[in-house]
């Protein structure tokens, strides 16, 4: 119990005689200033992860079925519509492509760090004058794209 409640009113200390109250310690001083600045920075930071895909993935099992001599119609039936057809003299080349982009961003206080990486699965099919498949070039890199701040 507080001592002042046990004393008679006459014995109550006057304002001038009251013992000085020790200054109240605030919990923040221990944080000041570097930690406060760090907390401020963390509070203002954010990050970004995004992924963008163009076209549909190219099924590898369908690509494995490509054989020289197939007609363009058969190739299209297997892989779907090409994204580009290049007329080469009397021949043609079809491009099938699936592109993936991963973007990573870090916003730390006033600093904005952004990284973007793009890779693709790409198939080129070359046809002869009589519309028969002669060559196929394949590259699979879309799965290799990664998030990061490199």
């Amino acid at each position, binding site marked *: 119990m507080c001592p002042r409640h046990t004393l008679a009113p006459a014995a109550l200390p006057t304002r001038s005689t009251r013992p000085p109250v020790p*200054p109240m310690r*605030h919990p*923040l*001083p221990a944080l*000041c*200033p570097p930690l*406060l*600045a760090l907390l*401020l920075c963390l509070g*203002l930071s954010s990050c970004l992860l995004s992924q963008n895909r163009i076209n549909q993935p190219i099924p590898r099992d369908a690509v494995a079925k490509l054989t020289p001599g197939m007609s363009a119609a058969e190739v299209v039936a297997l892989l779907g519509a090409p994204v*580009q057809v*290049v*007329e*080469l*003299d*009397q021949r043609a*080349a079809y*491009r099938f492509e699936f592109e993936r982009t991963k973007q990573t961003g870090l916003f730390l*206080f*006033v*600093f*904005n*760090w*952004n*990284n*973007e*990486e*793009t*890779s*693709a699965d*790409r*198939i*080129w099919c*070359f046809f002869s004058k009589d519309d028969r498949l*002669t*060559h*196929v*070039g*394949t*590259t699979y*890199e879309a799965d*290799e794209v990664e998030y990061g*701040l*490199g």
Partner: protein
Amino acid sequence: MAWVERRCGGPAALLLCFSPFLSGCLQLSYRSMDRFKAPPAEGVAALTAGMELGACLELLGAPWRVLELETDPGLILVYAWERATGWGLSVSGSDDRAPGSFNLAQSRSLPRALTLWFDGQDRLERFEQGFLSPALASRLAGLEGLRPGSR
């Protein structure tokens, strides 16, 4: 108040220093971009004139773009990839009486290409590796993506 003055003099000064940043007056940025990958080095090292188209595709994989030659019945395969980096500094003022801004930016782009020329019989005539040339890039204009560099 004495405690505030005594203990928060540092943070107050800190906040005062950071106030331009908090109000968006100052921004620093760094950006990097990678588009596609270079063909395998061992494949490039194995290229020799006279190779057949199929063998080249086997070594290097699918090209980025295929073009026809303007004068001959042959074709061109282009393998292209790019690494770009850049940074920027932006400072702006918010005073309506004297608004102003300052922007400083620098970027570096390295669009690279491996170009293969084939004759009418699909035999490799020659190949060249370096920056994506403006002449080639102009033919590829409209096909999105890489910007021309200087040889």
